[in-house]
């Protein structure tokens, strides 16, 4: 399992460099549409490691075709310059009746399957690249339908799933989606996310995907129990941290992940070559 860190804005540049230099991570995940005004060649030279590209605001379920075509044209420049390990996006809602959510919305997996599938097919076609779609940290009970939805989506569109393990933990805690229901999705997936979560301020408590705290014991237990389903040649896991960014805390979590998964094949190979 290769480990990565999410690089969303310039403030964490030095820290990401240090994580790479000290061998805590093997690749970086760019929140790529934050960098659409940065020259692709500058971005390609930014880190001496492989990269993944994570899309935040394509809004491909909502945007019109010309907007998506223009977005994809710019994305393409970065795909060509950076030759990423993967390109990923989100299945979620950014707005309702033209009004933006500030806490993004989950789709209705049973009634929206066909329309989402068609959008996924069209979006991959416009980008000209396979895309891995991330699962949502479900709160409401409709989230129990997510595993079957993603399984079918992969089968019918050729898309991948970027499986966020702690989002699945939130969904498990909030609406009881069993970890076991994700087994096939995890087995098929190559690319993963993991992060901390926290509880809501008011009861009945729900778990929120916040990217601001240490990995929780149940997240680590989930990874341990499904270790062999997650780990496979070429697999990646991005540790996401967007708030309370403390180097030592991040390294402590990355060490837990290293202990759990061991050194990746690729790095062992590198080390053997340089020895």
């Amino acid at each position: 399992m290769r480990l990565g860190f999410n690089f969303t804005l310039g403030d964490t540049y030095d820290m990401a460099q240090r994580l790479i230099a000290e061998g805590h991570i093997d690749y970086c995940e760019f929140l790529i549409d934050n960098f659409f005004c940065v020259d692709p060649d500058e971005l390609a030279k930014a880190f001496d490691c492989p990269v993944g590209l994570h899309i935040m605001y394509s809004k491909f379920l909502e945007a019109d075709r010309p907007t998506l075509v223009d977005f994809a044209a710019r994305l393409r420049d970065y795909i060509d310059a950076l030759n990423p390990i993967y390109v990923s996006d989100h299945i979620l809602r950014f707005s309702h009746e033209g009004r933006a959510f500030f806490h993004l919305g989950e789709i209705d997996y049973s009634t929206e399957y066909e329309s989402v599938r068609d959008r996924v097919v069209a979006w991959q076609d416009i980008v000209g690249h396979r895309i891995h779609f991330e699962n949502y940290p479900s709160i409401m009970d409709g989230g129990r339908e997510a595993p079957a939805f993603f399984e079918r989506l992969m089968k019918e569109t050729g898309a991948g799933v970027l499986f966020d393990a702690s989002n699945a933990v939130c969904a498990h805690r909030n609406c009881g989606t069993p970890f076991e229901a994700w087994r096939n999705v995890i087995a098929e997936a190559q690319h993963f996310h993991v992060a901390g979560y926290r509880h809501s301020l008011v009861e009945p408590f729900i778990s929120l995907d916040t990217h601001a705290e240490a990995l929780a014991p149940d997240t680590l237990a989930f990874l341990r129990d499904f270790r062999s389903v997650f780990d496979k040649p070429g697999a990646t896991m991005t540790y996401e941290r967007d708030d309370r960014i403390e180097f030592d805390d991040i390294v402590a979590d990355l060490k837990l992940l290293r202990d759990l998964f061991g050194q990746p094949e690729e790095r062992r190979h590198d080390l053997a070559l340089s020895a």
Partner: protein
Amino acid sequence: MILLSLPSRTDRDLYPALMSPELNAKYPTDHKAFVRIDVSLRMYWHTLFDICPELLELSGLDGMSIFRPFMAWAGEKKLAFDWSYYLWVYVWLRQSPFKDRLLADDKYLRSVMAASAARWAILDRGRDCGIVIGCADTRNLVIGWKCRSVRLGREIELIEPEEPLPAPPDIFGYFTLQTFELDVFPGWQSLAR
């Protein structure tokens, strides 16, 4: 256990309430749906007051005397809650009982203009590099620049032009810049709702 008469199986069932304190109040407080909506509403609250804490001097610490009536007004006007979110709060404040205190100190205006410029710079996915925001209540301009280097974030500039631009026809106006240079004035665009 309270039986909930409103549909709440999926997140989608709650979409209209996610931006409405009024609708949230219709859900029993011990139900998960209430908490989920509360989480969403808190995001609107924090997006406003964490970035413009000065506004709490007007409203009092919980912000509710601004937040609740503003959200209700925004709902009636069907505001899109795009990058101009903060500017609309100012527009609302200007016709609220807070008006005199708001206009007595321009720090509130500077704060909302900078916040909106920053929000544009971080959220807009068009090809433009920068946005210039102007206001009828000041000659100063605020510019938001998108991230232009891997080592930098977005940048916000306050400009006091020697020769002021004509005032925008509405309270606020804006225009965008196709390069990282402020070298054109194409005229003011009005805020979209």
